[in-house]
């Protein structure tokens, strides 16, 4: 899915017309929101935990340069290598360089949204490296040549019949079965072999601790542990905002993350990696490479309001609660991060001129803000980005892209009319006369297709007030 072909309106129409998709989504989202609710049933405890999470993330962002340097220093002391990448292209080349250093032709991958952001699989394929997704959801969509539609449950848009067909068609000698247990067994068998043979493993990072140089990875399947433990080389990619100050920051964030993401008290595995295999240890990778990716994050940091975007811990719960996401699904958004978090993150990363349409996909119902475990005021940021779309003096790349000559002229006229008493009186008189023909002009025609045409009253509020004998200023 490339930005140049991005037609949000068309995507939305297509998604809404797909009944199967809508039913898959509505079932899944209902179940996920219910599970989250059960975990955070104690409102006071949840609020206290959120306040902690919010403060931890804000503190970390405000100390980002120091924390990153400390993380780097600690990781190197622990025996890891640390790489910095300004762009996704640079990050891809670093990964490729490491693979080439080891003459590796195969990569086994755990789930990582940053690697999606890098379009790593496509890049590696172009350079002759097989990159295999091992998270079950990611494995399914990779077989189908798709991208994730949700940041936590990547194949949420598919039902078991669709997955059964994919396995039957794409994995050699696989009978068609809709039994979920059997589908899992097929994946287990196929991927076990790949872990066994894996030359290099790649993972994301849920948080990195500056204090100790520890990478925390959270998962249920065990594929993440396989990728980071079995192959002789482990590459971890992370957005540079994922650093936290202290080890003691991990437990509250972990609780918020697992509770919000999947309604779990804790995931099956919390994997805390602080270094490669020591000389006398029998397993674990011999090399660990940490890649810190900027890709626009340093720019987002410079605006105090928009900076809050980077507090995100990628729990995905704002997607589950969004009335727009739950109807159109992740693919319609056309970029890597869908739903409310995507609406604020994507335009800032890609530029409003490319992705400025996405923040319009919100009803501003505030559900995302209410559930966000780190209290990101998502609707405020959406409003800000919508405003920036029209603002020639904005700060987000691509700002002002929606500003048109006609609109600018209309607003100028509006300001003029409101500043001059005489003009104002004249326009107020003319409005009821002229308004019936207005809806047949330009954008108003489209606007009134789904809405009732406004009718101007014959008398203004001021006149009516005066008629009632009330003194009007």
């Amino acid at each position, binding site marked *: 899915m490339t930005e140049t072909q991005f037609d949000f309106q068309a995507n939305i129409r297509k998604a809404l017309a797909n009944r199967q998709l809508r039913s898959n989504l509505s079932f899944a989202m209902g179940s996920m929101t219910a599970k989250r609710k059960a975990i955070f049933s104690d409102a006071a405890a949840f609020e206290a935990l959120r306040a902690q999470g919010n403060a931890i993330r804000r503190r970390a962002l405000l100390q980002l340069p120091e924390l990153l340097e400390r993380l780097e220093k600690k990781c190197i002391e622990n025996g890891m290598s640390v790489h910095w990448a300004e762009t996704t292209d640079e990050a891809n080349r670093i990964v490729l360089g490491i693979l080439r250093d080891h003459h590796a032709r195969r990569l086994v991958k755990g789930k990582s949204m940053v690697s999606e952001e890098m379009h790593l699989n496509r890049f590696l394929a172009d350079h002759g490296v097989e990159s295999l997704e091992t998270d079950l959801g990611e494995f399914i969509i990779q077989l189908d040549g798709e991208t994730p539609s949700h940041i936590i449950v990547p194949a949420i848009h598919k039902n078991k019949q669709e997955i059964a067909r994919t396995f039957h068609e794409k994995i050699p000698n696989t009978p068609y079965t809709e039994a979920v247990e059997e589908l899992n067994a097929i994946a287990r068998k196929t991927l076990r072999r790949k872990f066994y043979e894996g030359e290099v493993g790649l993972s994301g990072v849920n948080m990195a601790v500056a204090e*100790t140089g520890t990478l925390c990875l959270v998962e249920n399947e065990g594929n993440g542990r396989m990728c980071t433990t079995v192959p002789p080389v482990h590459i971890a990619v992370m957005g540079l905002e994922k650093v936290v100050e202290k080890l003691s920051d991990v437990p509250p964030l972990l609780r918020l993350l697992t509770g919000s993401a999947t309604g779990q008290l804790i995931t099956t595995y919390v994997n805390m990696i602080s270094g490669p295999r020591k000389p006398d240890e029998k397993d674990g990778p011999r090399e660990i490479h940490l890649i810190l990716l900027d890709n626009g994050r340093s720019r987002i940091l410079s605006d105090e309001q928009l900076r809050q975007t980077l507090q995100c811990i990628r729990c995905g719960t704002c997607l589950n609660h969004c009335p727009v996401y739950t109807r159109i699904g992740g693919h319609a958004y056309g970029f890597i991060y869908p739903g409310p978090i995507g609406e604020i993150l994507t335009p800032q990363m890609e530029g409003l001129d490319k992705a400025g349409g996405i923040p319009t996909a919100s009803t501003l119902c505030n559900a995302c803000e209410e559930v966000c475990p780190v209290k990101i005021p998502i609707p405020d940021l959406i409003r800000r980005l919508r405003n920036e779309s029209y603002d020639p003096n904005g700060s987000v790349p691509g700002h002002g892209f929606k500003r048109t000559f006609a609109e600018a002229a209309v607003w100028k006229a509006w300001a003029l009319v409101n500043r001059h008493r005489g003009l104002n009186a004249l326009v107020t008189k003319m409005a009821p006369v002229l308004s019936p023909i207005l809806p047949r002009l330009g954008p108003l025609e489209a606007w009134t297709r789904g809405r009732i045409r406004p009718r101007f009253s014959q008398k203004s509020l001021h006149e009516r007030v005066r008629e009632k004998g009330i003194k009007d200023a």
Partner: protein
Amino acid sequence: MPEKSRERILRRISSALGDRRNLPSVPAPLQTPPLSREEKIEQLKTRMTAMRSEVHVVPKGDRDALWTDRLKTIVVEKGLKQMLYAPGTPVGDAVAAAWAAGDAGLPVLEPYDAPVETFKEALFSMDAGITATMGGIADTGALILWPDENEPRLMSLVPEVHIAVLDADRIYESFSEAMEKCVWADGMPTNALLISGPSKTADIELVLAFGVHGPKELVVLILT
């Protein structure tokens, strides 16, 4: 090349933040009443059982109910063929001593005593692996594992059944308490793990399925 990006990124984020930064303080977590030893055992057991772990609480002192006897019953009932263990560790040695009696039907004990490069084939064919734990976490229901040179990381991941032995005196109320009491910040192992149940996924229609990549079963022996 990496140096240049590093410097540019650090310069950008430093100037993005400026110098005047008011760091918010992190509020303290809500206090909960402390749990007794029995309550911690009970809570850990309930939470882990809810996540499909099989939990056995066994007295460790009583000669008639040595935990290794219980272990033997469990492994025989499950029909395990080979079990990976860690020689030179208290748990590994206790298992080896108990197995020396030579009861019928017990799985063959296999030591993980070679680097993974030469041990991989054996490792990937194991039915079960038995490990010690560093502790347990009552409020979420999880075990703490610190693999080391004697007890490698993959013992708790690759075999189909993972059996973990936990000393009831080492159950903490929360992850935070465990970190604090054991001063984790002073020295982390190469790999520390929390494990709360068998491997699972809900990626297909959110239906929970177990053992997708890691162990299909997690058996916990809590020694009181």
